[in-house]
């Protein structure tokens, strides 16, 4: 796709006007540098394809960390009218409700630094990780169905965490319309032993400290102070969610044909939201969303246990959940469309909800400042906590970026890592790394990712989020 098809319409916002089969324009949020990168990939073309789908409202959006994805671009956001619109697995992704939780520990870097090695080794022992990992909490079918229905609430009920955790999870850790009856036997089989497991690839546990505070008021509201120790958990619905997505794709391709939906790309298979096929996907997808909420809650419990082992009673048991966000999800939310409040099915794929101050879905404790937005970077540089804005609510259905995004293929990263000791390089920067697989160390090395700061800058430039704090990693665990 030609780069000059996108015209700047505001600071950090580019528009590809609606033409041909497009029902709405495509809007790309990016700096000059990032928009060039985006066109080198085919994310803008994918955003244009999404703009052709029935019932799309406003615009097909792509956040600053956009890159190629299955059907929708990663970084894609699209909202659909519940009566006229569609739901698409390509708009959610394979790792349904991949997301991030941030917790704080009541200690400063100086208090923790002498025990970081013991801490990361403990996390490595207590949180199963790696490719094809089972070894989590084993569930029989009845209990798995409870997980799919109740999400993080199931975990808290079982003693994994506290009710206070639930207040600080997007949707309070549960989507109410999950339907385990719509989940296939293969997904049920894959879900049996993966609750409480991290997985592999770009999933991680990271201990960091607050390196810089940009917004003292919001930081104080979130309980984040300069030098404070934080823990970030990044993972999703594991094999269960992959299978739910996989099972849905042939059904959705057939549904698109059945309902006369012309698809510019086979990967945009979809069904009308109100159709039996659409309802079936929504029920199964929401079950996977709940699976992921439960997964992160159980992992958070293992993190607490590890802190308790390493730091003892008071400090170890006082890990507080700042917030947990979903990155890959479709759900119903109310948004203003032409001045009128409408219920829409918002797809966010590699994008984060970023609701502003005053929104009723923001936890009470944060309502005066807005929703925390968690943006992980790579394991060698930094991650950010941002806050949602009114502008995001008006322009992007309350959405912003979700991370840095890869700059290098896995093979290119492995070639670049050849002959180097990445663990030692990170140690020289005072970052400890434990990983199950030497290969994942190479594939996930810091240079394999774009600089998350450029993505955050793009969000700030366009006004769809404000920076609150920057976190610098000190110990990281990869699958």
């Amino acid at each position, binding site marked *: 796709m030609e780069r000059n098809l996108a015209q700047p319409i505001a600071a950090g916002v580019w528009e590809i006007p609606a033409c041909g089969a497009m029902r709405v324009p495509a809007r790309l949020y990016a700096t000059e540098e990032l928009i060039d990168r985006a066109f080198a990939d085919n994310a803008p073309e994918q955003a244009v394809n999404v703009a052709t789908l029935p019932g799309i409202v406003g615009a097909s959006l792509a956040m600053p960390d956009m890159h190629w994805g299955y059907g929708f671009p990663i970084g894609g956001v699209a909202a659909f009218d519940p009566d006229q619109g569609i739901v698409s697995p390509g708009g959610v992704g394979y790792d349904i409700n991949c997301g991030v939780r941030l917790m704080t520990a009541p200690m400063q870097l100086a208090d923790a630094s002498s025990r970081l090695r013991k801490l990361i080794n403990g996390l490595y022992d207590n949180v199963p990780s790696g490719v094809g990992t089972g070894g989590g909490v084993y569930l029989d079918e009845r209990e798995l169905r409870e997980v799919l229905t109740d999400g993080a609430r199931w975990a808290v009920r079982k003693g994994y965490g506290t009710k206070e955790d639930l207040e600080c999870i997007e949707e309070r850790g549960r989507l109410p319309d999950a339907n385990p009856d719509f989940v296939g036997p293969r997904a049920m089989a894959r879900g049996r032993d993966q609750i409480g497991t991290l997985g592999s690839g770009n999933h991680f546990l990271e201990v960091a400290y607050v390196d810089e505070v940009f917004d003292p008021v919001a930081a104080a509201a979130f309980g984040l102070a300069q030098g404070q120790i934080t823990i970030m958990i990044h993972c999703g619905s594991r094999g269960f969610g992959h299978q739910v997505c996989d099972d849905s794709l042939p059904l959705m391709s057939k549904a698109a044909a059945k309902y006369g939906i012309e698809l510019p790309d086979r990967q945009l298979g979809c069904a009308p939201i109100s159709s039996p096929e659409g309802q079936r996907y929504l029920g199964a997808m929401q079950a996977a969303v709940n699976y992921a909420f439960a997964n992160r809650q159980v992992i958070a419990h293992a993190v607490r246990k590890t802190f308790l082992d390493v730091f003892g009673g008071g400090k170890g048991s006082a890990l507080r959940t700042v917030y947990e966000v979903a990155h890959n999800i479709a759900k119903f939310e109310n948004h203003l469309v032409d001045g009128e409040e409408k219920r829409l099915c918002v797809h966010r794929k590699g994008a984060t909800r970023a609701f502003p101050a005053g929104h009723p879905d923001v936890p009470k404790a944060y309502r005066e400042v807005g929703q925390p937005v968690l943006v992980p970077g790579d394991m060698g540089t930094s991650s950010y906590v941002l806050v949602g804005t009114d502008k995001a609510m008006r322009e992007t259905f309350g959405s912003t970026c979700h991370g840095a995004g890869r700059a290098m293929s*896995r093979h290119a990263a492995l070639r670049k890592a050849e002959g180097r000791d990445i663990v030692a390089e990170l140690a020289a920067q005072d970052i400890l790394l434990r990983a199950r697989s030497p290969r994942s160390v190479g594939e996930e090395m810091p240079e394999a990712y774009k600089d998350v700061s450029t993505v955050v800058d793009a969000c700030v430039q366009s006004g769809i989020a404000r920076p609150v704090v920057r976190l610098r990693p000190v110990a990281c665990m990869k699958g």
Partner: protein
Amino acid sequence: MTRLPITEPEWLSHVDHTADECIEVVAPSPDVLFERLAAGWMLVVASPHGIEPREAWAVEVEGSDPEELLVNWLGELNFRHQCFHLVFAEFSVLEYDGSVLRAEIRGEAIDPTRHEILAEVKAVTYHHLRLAQEADGWRGRVLFDM
């Protein structure tokens, strides 16, 4: 029958892709193409060293066209690998007609002391998917969501 090669075979190549893993395979016939694509998938997922053909399993998949059949074939192997913790050493396509594939696969349960699992394929996708007869034989390309 295609045996999992220990060294990278000349019929397999990797297409560079930023976030995911894309392989391309050439073969003299569609049957062998499907076997080699299966072996290519296994090489993405695991080191070939130490994988023995100790047990055999029958596989039968269907698809509305050869492309869907390929996605379902590799998806089936990926499911068995992840859910039953298996790795495979041999792939034999017994019957292929473009919409149905019957095969026998041989392998064993994953033994962490002998097998190295390299990566997790979340799913087999239609992106960049290609199946075509060319001058030098059959060519297939598939991208795995990682």
